[in-house]
């Protein structure tokens, strides 16, 4: 049986905020055949199982599932076709993908492809946490789906590993499932969420926060019976629990990008993109958490809007900006996205740092020339830092890489 082929104008892979926003914009701009694939049974991406607020806008706040529905509806209303339960398996050409779903196997050819495949949390094994392999070990993504989408039982006493925003969301989900959060554990000296949220967890929910602390072992045969943690000063203690949630530490789900041999950025591990979200392959674009693991749904949505504009230009025959230079970060910065720059790129950049610093100086340098310098109020790991793009007009497209440094005190 030969595989049927379908022709579309734009193929978007991933119906999360970035993919749906891009599809809605493209369809609204008059692109006739915009196809969005999602391997999950329902569109919306991660917000589908973030049953908490903080989505939408100040004037129109929404929960994650409501936000997912809103984006889905907007894309469909604009004329995009959203096909769920359909998996993009591999490339079948520079701008073609093999797909499968209950309706069968297909090759989809497009004039432009947008990868919006998102990111996932590193599971316990990828973090090389020693110990046995008992049941009761989760990532936030799995926990939220288990509790909010399937109503599954998760145990009674949970330790949450991490103290960033997603960790507090995981703790809320544990409580929503009727279980107790025994402790939150972070290797950093402070919580990395907002002060309000950290205080609420500690004072109202009485959840101890163990700072400067590492999980050194999982214990138990069959079901988790506890986790061993060690403080930076060498003290070690065993926390009795039947559930542990590993939160944060996101990596892009970059399989298609990698199988397509797109150039990857060593910092984000997602595809390298310039300010217009072009990847290294003409006609292939990327957006959302695949590019910056992981930012808010709002940021992903803005990416979708931005990538739609770039795709429209490309379909209209615009030349790709040929002269981009790499945008590199130096420790303690972990990554920056986008990570290639052309003179005049206008959108802001997102960065992450691995070290806590107060009033650090952020500097952008090319070949010894300082293009930009600013003092930040603070830099906290696992929280977004932004860099505006005013300096990009100073970039020499024939020069060396542009380097971004953060000098703390």
């Amino acid at each position, binding site marked *: 049986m030969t595989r049927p082929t379908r022709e579309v104008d734009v193929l978007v892979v991933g119906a999360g905020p970035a993919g749906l926003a891009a599809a809605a914009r493209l369809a609204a701009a008059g692109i006739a055949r915009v196809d969005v694939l999602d391997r999950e049974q329902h569109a919306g991406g991660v917000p589908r199982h973030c049953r908490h607020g903080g989505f939408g806008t100040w004037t129109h706040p929404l929960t994650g599932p409501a936000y997912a529905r809103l984006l889905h509806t907007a894309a469909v209303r604009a004329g995009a076709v959203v096909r769920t339960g359909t998996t993009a398996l591999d490339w079948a050409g520079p701008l073609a993908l093999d797909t*499968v779903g209950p309706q*069968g196997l297909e090759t989809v050819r497009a004039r432009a492809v947008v990868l919006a495949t998102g990111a996932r949390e590193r599971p316990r094994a990828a973090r090389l946490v020693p110990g046995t392999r008992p049941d009761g070990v*989760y990532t936030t993504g*799995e926990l939220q789906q288990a509790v909010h989408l*399937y109503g*599954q039982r998760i145990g009674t006493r949970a330790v949450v590993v991490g103290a960033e925003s997603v960790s507090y969301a995981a703790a809320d989900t544990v409580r929503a499932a009727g279980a107790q959060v025994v402790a939150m554990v972070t290797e950093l000296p402070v919580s990395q969420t907002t002060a309000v949220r950290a205080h609420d967890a500690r004072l109202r929910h009485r959840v101890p926060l163990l700072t400067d602390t590492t999980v050194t072992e999982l214990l138990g045969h069959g079901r988790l019976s506890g986790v061993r943690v060690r403080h930076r000063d060498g003290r070690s203690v065993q926390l009795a629990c039947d559930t542990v949630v590993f939160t944060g530490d996101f990596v892009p789900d970059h399989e298609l990008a990698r199988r397509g041999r797109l150039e990857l950025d060593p910092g984000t591990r997602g595809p390298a993109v310039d300010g217009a979200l072009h990847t290294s392959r003409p006609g292939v674009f990327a957006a959302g958490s695949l590019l910056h693991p992981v930012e808010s749904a709002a940021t992903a949505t803005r990416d979708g809007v931005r990538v739609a504009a770039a795709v429209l230009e490309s379909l209209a025959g615009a030349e790709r900006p040929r002269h981009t230079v790499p945008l590199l970060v130096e420790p303690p910065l972990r990554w920056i996205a986008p990570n290639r720059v052309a003179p005049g790129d206008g959108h802001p950049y997102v960065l992450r740092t691995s070290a806590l610093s107060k009033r650090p100086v952020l500097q952008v340098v090319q070949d010894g020339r300082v293009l930009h310098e600013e003092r930040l109020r603070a830099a906290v790991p696992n929280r977004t830092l932004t860099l505006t793009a005013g300096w990009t007009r100073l970039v020499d497209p024939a020069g060396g890489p542009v380097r971004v440094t953060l000098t703390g005190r």
Partner: protein
Amino acid sequence: MTVTLNGPLPSGSYDVAVVGAGVVGCAIARELARRPRLRVALVEAQDDVGQGTSKANTAILHTGFDAVPGSLEARLVREGARRLAAYAGESGIAVEPVGALLVAWDEEQRAALPHLAEKAVRNEYRATRLIEPAELYEREPHLGPGALGALHVPGESIVCPWTTTLAYATQAVRHGVDLHLNSPVSDVNWHDGEHVLSTARGTLRTRRLVNAAGLHADTLDRHLGHRDFTVTPRRGQLIVFDKLARDLVHHILLPVPTARGKGVLVTPTVYGNLLLGPTAEDLDDKRATGSTAEGLALLRESGARILPALLDEEVTAVYAGLRAATEQDDYRITAHPEQAYVTVGGIRSTGLTASLAIASHVTALLADMGLDPGPARDLEPVRMPNLGETHPRPHRNARRVAADPEYGSLVCHCEGVSRGEIRDALASTVPPRNLDGLRRRTRARAGRCQGFYCGAAVRELFEGAGA
């Protein structure tokens, strides 16, 4: 077809009971199933087959080139390898004949290579070849710098250990063997020509007994008054790397064994991952299947030398297995005719390869003890779902998806597991009892996300099946 999980064991007497449903016990039960006249029980302590050493090893189908020449192990590995390769081909067990390279990193190791080639000849394996660094790096461009040469062993293969054990068990059960799970044996009494096994599910009577209890073979042996050997669990920790790292190697990269230890290997798996390990730690706790910070650090250190690019790849899983090591460098297969009892002990890492030959050897010992097996029959072939990366999964087969759309509906995305395959596994002859069992049958939740995307959905399907 009988697989029991709870309730009292049958009251009648069996002709043969095999204790231990690992790869060896299942192979023996399958061999005995060829005799329709025999009533055979396969008794397992845990809730699934292949839950001990059989599920946590390096999954290599050995040629036996480096066995102790003249040993029973050498002979059974040699025979078993040929038979398992053929059986795998007809049964849908994933096998890849990738070949092995024993890489020498120093002069001592390089000097050992010709001796290993000679040893291979004494084990009737003549296809080894010494290769120079130039060819070695041509074959393995990602190999770390400084290798001085290698011994090429083209016959070494990789195999799916889970499907192998399960295929044996499936065939055995379909041909009348009673598989009794959750039945750890706590005592054995032998009188009036009958063994009475005390298990957690009551007593089981049998006229002949085969001890294939793996790590616990010495304990069971002691119940029958034998102190021939002691099993010392030798822990091997392994790291499984992401499938996207698969192209970094083309062979099994074996260490050269020297007086200072065995070293670790890097090997592809049939599922398309890379495996780094194992450590070798002699322990006294037969439940110590955990990984340790020290073990993982040691593996990463070795991995950095063998294949530097490996450490930049994502880790998919970490596991540890316990080898049933004894005081001797050979299998401990002993017939005790006075008790109508056969001990199958000390089956180490080669047990998977040798399993079919061990089964023939053990049934011959039973016959020598006066078991009249009656007429033999050919077994109905079994077709297991092939979990190999080089074998297209059902969702890649347009015909299958068209005939049954459930095969086009993927649940576990990292491993490409469809609802149809999960449904089939849940309805199989020896069904999974928990999510780990489902993982070993389908690879659901075995991929890079470890359940981030699919965990809850897979659990829903499993629990919805009334499991």
